[in-house]
């Protein structure tokens, strides 16, 4: 990790969490407003629950890298081909939200499995039978703990169905990463292509990545049925920092041996989640939420 990136990441983290703590603690100390008990309950509330969902990833290479350098060929022939939003991932976590008069601020620490796919392709020779192809198909799996901080605004602030829009930022701690590498050789020595498997490798590559941060925006709807609030939301997470560890790029012999090293990469995600949250304030024997 570049010291600059590390400092930047830590700065973002500090700002996000300091803002979170100050705001939420401050709000928690606010005295109840004037009005009826039910109205007060609806105007100001803490919500806590669980959140699950799926995600899709759009990897955005900034600078392409390879452990192959070609003698007499242009470098772009080494560029990887990325699939966009092709493989589903999953996430599960906690949803903690403070609501006040249409606005909510929430933090949702989430454990997340991200997946995306890319290809390396090489060919030798020009015409069969002196022609040979090789393809690496690589599924990248990343496990991360997302810590998003988001501000929501309810467009409709009454009734049991409350659509909202949201925006915020997030910081992600990468806990594990691995690559599943499928190798396919195609030999044209007999005049026609004969594909053979070069095997499948699963490589631990956690050290090739670093924590990252970004901004998010999304839409959703809160559904207040069955004495529980169900929140359905779709969020786009825009990565702002490089997720790869540039210092370790060429240090892992398992990767360099097969010609695959990480590009400098930012990552966008679409998260679709379902939360089940419960009110935390004023729950007692005298009050029934719904």
């Amino acid at each position, binding site marked *: 990790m570049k010291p600059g990136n590390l400092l930047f990441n830590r700065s973002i983290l500090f700002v996000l969490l300091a803002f979170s703590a100050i705001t939420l603690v401050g709000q928690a100390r606010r005295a109840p407003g004037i009005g009826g008990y039910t109205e007060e309950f609806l105007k100001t509330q803490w919500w806590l629950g669980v959140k699950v969902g799926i995600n899709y990833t759009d990897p955005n290479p900034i600078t392409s890298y390879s452990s192959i*350098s070609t*003698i007499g060929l242009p470098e772009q022939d080494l560029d990887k081909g990325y699939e966009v939003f092709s493989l589903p991932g999953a996430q599960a976590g906690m949803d903690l939200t403070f609501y006040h008069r249409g606005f909510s601020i929430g933090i949702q620490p989430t454990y997340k499995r991200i997946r995306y796919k890319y290809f390396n392709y090489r060919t030798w020779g020009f015409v069969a039978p002196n022609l040979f192809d090789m393809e690496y198909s690589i599924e990248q799996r990343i496990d991360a703990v997302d810590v998003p901080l988001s501000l929501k605004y309810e467009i409709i602030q009454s009734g049991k169905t409350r659509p909202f829009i949201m925006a915020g930022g997030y910081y992600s701690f990468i806990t594990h990463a691995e690559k599943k590498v499928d190798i396919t050789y195609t030999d044209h020595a007999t005049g026609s292509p004969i594909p053979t498997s070069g095997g499948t490798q699963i490589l631990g590559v956690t050290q090739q990545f670093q924590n990252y941060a970004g901004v998010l925006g999304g839409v959703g709807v809160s559904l207040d049925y069955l004495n529980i609030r169900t929140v359905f939301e779709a969020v786009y997470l825009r990565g702002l920092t490089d997720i790869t560890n540039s210092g370790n790029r060429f240090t892992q012999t398992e990767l360099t*041996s097969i010609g695959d090293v990480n590009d400098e990469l930012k990552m966008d995600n679409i998260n679709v989640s379902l939360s089940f949250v419960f009110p935390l304030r004023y729950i007692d024997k005298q009050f029934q939420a719904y």
Partner: protein
Amino acid sequence: MKKLFYFLLVIPFLYSCSDEDPIPETGFFKVYDDVNYGVDYHAIDVVKSSTGFIILTATEIDRTDFSGIQLIKVDEEGEFEAELTFDPAPVLPTGELMEVNGRYYFFGMDPQTIQVQLISVNDSLSDEQIVNVPLTYPLAAAASSTSNQFLILSYDPFNAESVISYIGTDGSIINTAAYSIGAGEDVEATILDHYLNPGEQPLPFFVGETPGGSVFFNGFYNYSMSMVFSDFGGTPTGVLQGQTTDGGIRKAMPISGNIFAVGGFQFNDNFIAVDASISSTAIASSVDLYTLYGNVTEYRSYTPMDIASYDIGTTTYTIIAAETENRQIGLYIFDQTTGELVGKHNIGYLNPYTLASLRPETDEENHLLLTGTTYIANRFQRIYLNRIPEEEVSSWISQ
């Protein structure tokens, strides 16, 4: 509720504290590929140049059975910049690749006259100079501690002698001595076979200087592949005898006095030592070192070896490299002062790797350079160059 937030606040900082010392981005690992289906590359040595790196390679050329010469220039990020192929002559690229006054020298041979030639190129490979040297069949070379001189081991087929010589940058012989390889044609046939078909068992020719001012070479002397010490007299001052081509030394690096770091072989076994006592004034046998230090089972039979002295901070390490049984490069790192093994690291995975050269960059960035060949897709023999930052080497050493 507040406790929960304080807890969430603390977790990231606990994470932040776990970061290790970062490795700078100056390192790289590159494989130099060629789309040509039938071409192979054989790395010999690499040297840091003023704007990147120059790799000396052997390649196949038409109209001769000897190896052709190719130089590859890469930039400081390891990307290919230029290549220079000598076709049809000179042939027989013979390292080390040596820098003198901004030019990069190595030896070759005229295939018609079998005369040694001293070849130099500039940093961009745009200018080459070839001068004849009054010797035949180059076997190994190294830079001399005396400025503008090279030490070369060559073979004289007319007198069946191993010849050790100091050569100036103009190709002139400054000092020379010759020692018989033994009567008969068997040894000469072995030497010629080394040129034409080194295969999996290349002969470990090398030369060097002792701290005491004499020179040594590993070559044929009295029928055996031996490490011979010379003061350029009529007879060697000392010999560490090998056992024909079945036992001997593969690489030696002087540490101090009579102490050497060595890698050797005894039939299919290998041994390494960082504090071997080898007298430059006595007759001894390499098999005694094998008996003393034992077999390194990880290394493959007849592997090439290289040894480098490498400083990190105030500590000097001896690093021994060789090919493992599964065709990785196995690096053993020793504390040069205590002789203790302090680190082990392997380079390579999936495709086979071979070793050509291990040497530290002699600049302030203190990278370690490792070069050799690998077989992409298990078949296309290509050169690799690994530039390893000091911080990465440090991570291989147990604290």
